């Protein structure tokens, strides 16, 4: 089926007067049938029996990593924002010195230790 014909078929199939069964059969004819990889039923049964975890280990791992990354990243962003807010409140500004932990106040005890006066 030509691309233009397929596009027309898809659009016409959604019309009120279209017969859904005929439309879906024609789409199937054009695109082939949808199915899972061979042995799908066996993988489901293995999973039900508790022995099929390994089959999906890779996908589960990716999914877990996504979730973990998502949580760590959000927690990290929240911690950084809190730190910046607390620094701004305690120091009154967010200057470069504040980031480095260098206060603006003159420390007499440090001068005394260095100069002896």
């Amino acid at each position, binding site marked *: 089926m030509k691309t233009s014909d397929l596009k027309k078929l898809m659009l016409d199939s959604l019309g009120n007067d279209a017969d859904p069964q005929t439309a*879906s059969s024609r789409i199937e004819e054009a695109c082939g049938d949808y*199915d899972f*990889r061979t042995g*799908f039923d066996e*993988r489901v049964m293995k999973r*039900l029996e508790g022995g099929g975890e390994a089959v999906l280990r890779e*996908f589960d791992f990716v999914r877990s990593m996504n979730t973990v990354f998502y949580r760590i990243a959000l927690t990290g962003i929240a911690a950084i924002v809190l730190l910046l807010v607390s620094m701004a409140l305690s120091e009154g500004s967010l200057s470069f010195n504040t980031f480095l932990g260098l206060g603006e106040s003159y420390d007499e005890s440090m001068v005394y230790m260095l100069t002896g006066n």
Partner: protein
Amino acid sequence: MIDRTDNSADDSSLIRASLAGDTRAFGEIVRRYQKMVARTVRGMLGDSVFAEDVGQEVFIKLYHSLNEFRGEAKLSTYIQRIAVNLTLNEIKRRKRFFSTFSQKGNNEMYEYEIADEGTQEKREAAELVNKALQAMDPRFRVIVTMRLLQGYSTKETAEILGLPVGTVLSRLSRAQEQLKGILEKL
């Protein structure tokens, strides 16, 4: 041709046998309905690496909820509801993740593996349908999948999705408009 045979009577005996612990009977249910689930899941998720995962989850959830199946609806309708709900959950989860952390979207995770090897023409047609569906709003995508890939009438779609027929009709009309715009760009 999509198989629309009424298996109700046969399904009931398979359900009874499955509940009694006959795993072969449940295996028969999986074989009988796996293509139907594949059309919904792969239609809505595309040929992504997670489609089979969701497909398996559908049957595992069915297995664990078989004792809650009252037989008021057909088994196929019950399975479709599970498939649609799990697929929509997966779409939400992926949308949340990819919109936050990835500029590329999830298209890179597709693996175009058409079950029916077919010709190059079939592959291109399947890819076009896939791309068009994936570009649609999930609310419309589910309606279009039920119509285009499953061949369900408006009434059947409404029953599966638990929506009034009027809502399905209005979404179909809006889906048609959206699909027109998408297909013009493809």
